[in-house]
């Protein structure tokens, strides 16, 4: 029998636990040229802000050991155009659409979420409290009281599940995770990028115009896993794990540590069709290990 890949998060059913991460798949249009988006469990859009943003001047990315730095600066089309054009495009696919929302203050998160409340195709929203390249996001990401308040206010206006995306750039991620849960978050996704830097020794310049950026890719996977592991023990809401996942083995590790689903991010830049391969490989892994479903792996780590 074919193993069951479906998972459920806050009452929302996903065809499989493999999602694409915000900021690595645009609004789906480019990836749709390479494969059928319906093969994904879900797609998490680029962060949406109240008004369109052009983003930071280049260079915005730098290659690092087993990963990369980025400081794109939340370049996006703004909520109006997103709803008119981008969400309409995504409606065609049998996959879950999670809209990532970013703002400079709580009121902006609320404003965008209220607009998306009327768009049933926005199955869930993910609150980007943790963009390391925009100061306001970090202010909420690192402050449990602000994070709880932001989640609570968004929950008041958005009728479907709300995910809070957690930053690793905090003293204690568990405290923030609990605060978001307390504010009513239906799920947590973790981790966003780690603040990092690279320097050109010929020009004495940072490699990015933003000076610092967010580190992602396989380099951050161990950090992400440890944080999923810790947060899983501390909260009851389901977790969506991300950070350096590039193959099915990585996925299994995250599920064992407590993630119900995962997001593939930076790996898409190297292998845009990685999620399709991962779904297939995960199915084979489950079959080989005589497991009936992906759900059976969640939190089954035999920790010491």
């Amino acid at each position: 029998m074919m193993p069951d890949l479906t998972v459920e998060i806050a009452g929302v059913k996903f065809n499989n636990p493999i999602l694409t991460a915000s900021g690595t798949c645009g609004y789906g249009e480019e990836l749709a040229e390479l494969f059928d988006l319906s093969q994904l469990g879900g797609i998490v859009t680029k962060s949406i802000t109240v008004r369109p943003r052009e983003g930071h001047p280049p260079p915005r990315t730098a290659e690092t050991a087993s990963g990369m730095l980025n400081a794109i600066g939340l370049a996006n089309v703004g909520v109006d155009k997103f709803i008119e054009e981008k969400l309409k495009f995504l409606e065609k696919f049998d996959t879950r659409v999670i809209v990532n929302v970013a703002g400079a203050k709580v009121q902006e998160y609320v404003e965008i979420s209220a607009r998306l409340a009327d768009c049933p195709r926005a199955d869930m929203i993910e609150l980007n409290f943790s963009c390391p390249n925009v100061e306001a996001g970090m202010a909420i990401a690192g402050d449990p009281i602000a994070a709880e308040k932001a989640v609570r206010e968004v929950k008041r206006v958005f009728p479907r599940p709300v995910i809070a995306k957690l930053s690793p750039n905090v003293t204690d991620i568990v405290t923030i995770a609990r605060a978001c849960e307390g504010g009513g978050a239906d799920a947590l996704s973790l981790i966003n990028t780690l603040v990092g830097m690279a320097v050109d020794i010929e020009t004495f310049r940072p490699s990015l115009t933003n000076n610092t950026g967010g580190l992602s890719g396989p380099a951050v996977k161990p950090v992400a896993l440890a944080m999923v592991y810790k947060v899983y023990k501390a909260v009851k809401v389901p977790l969506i794990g991300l950070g350096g996942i590039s193959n099915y083995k990585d996925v299994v590790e995250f599920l064992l540590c407590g993630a119900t689903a995962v997001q593939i991010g930076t790996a898409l830049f190297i292998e845009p069709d990685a999620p399709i391969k991962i779904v297939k490989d995960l199915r084979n892994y489950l079959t080989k290990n005589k497991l009936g479903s992906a759900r059976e792996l969640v939190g089954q780590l035999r920790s010491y």
Partner: protein
Amino acid sequence: MSRIAIEDVKILDSSDLGRGNYRLILGPFSRSRSIMAGQFVHLQVPGGSVFFRRAFSVYDVNPEEKTLEILFKVFGRGTALLAKCRRGDTVNLMGPLGHGFDPPGKKESVILAAGGIGMPPLYFLAKQMIQKKHESDKIHFFYGGNCRADLIEVARIKKLGVKLHLSTDDGSFGFKGFVTSAIKEYLENNKGNYRLYACGPTGMLKAIDHLAQERTIPGQLSLEAPMPCGIGVCLGCVLPLTSGGYTRVCREGPVYDIGEVLL
């Protein structure tokens, strides 16, 4: 079937052309027939020690053999590793990507301005033009390098039957000076209407862009930027547009109209 393919291909031949320049023949690649001049492929350098793919303009294709060729100069870690690849090695290739050149009208006189390792897409453009019966003596191929050894594959360009104008910065071969100066001098002595296509280092493209705007010569430039994803999702390879905002070089480019991008 998707326009873009992601496939493992073999290195069928690797040639050291001197001065750090290399030519690779890759294949079989299912989309080689559909590649337009100016488009690029995104190569995963074997060995896993560089993280991103590397983008290369396509130099030539052989649709019958399903092969394609690229030329590159060793510049950083990625190209250094690629130069060490041998015949029979496998590389993962994604493409064709980006928008190629808009071909000129059949009767138009054309100036192709190639600077150093920016030559490949212009050779390919000239070849595709000739295949579409463009008169070869209406194609003026300006090709400049720092010195004589920088001018690679000259015999092959000559074979196309185009009017070849070679230049070197140090005067070791052909016209002495930048390729832009060679074009300027040519235009002084040969008035007429031209369409211009260019690819080369940013400084040269800046000069070409300026020259073309000053003399209202229509045309296009093929630009480059470090490209993490190559398909338009990472927003890393952007350049500023003259009209405001940014453009993704991998997606809206790498070919742009004269004056379109702020260089």
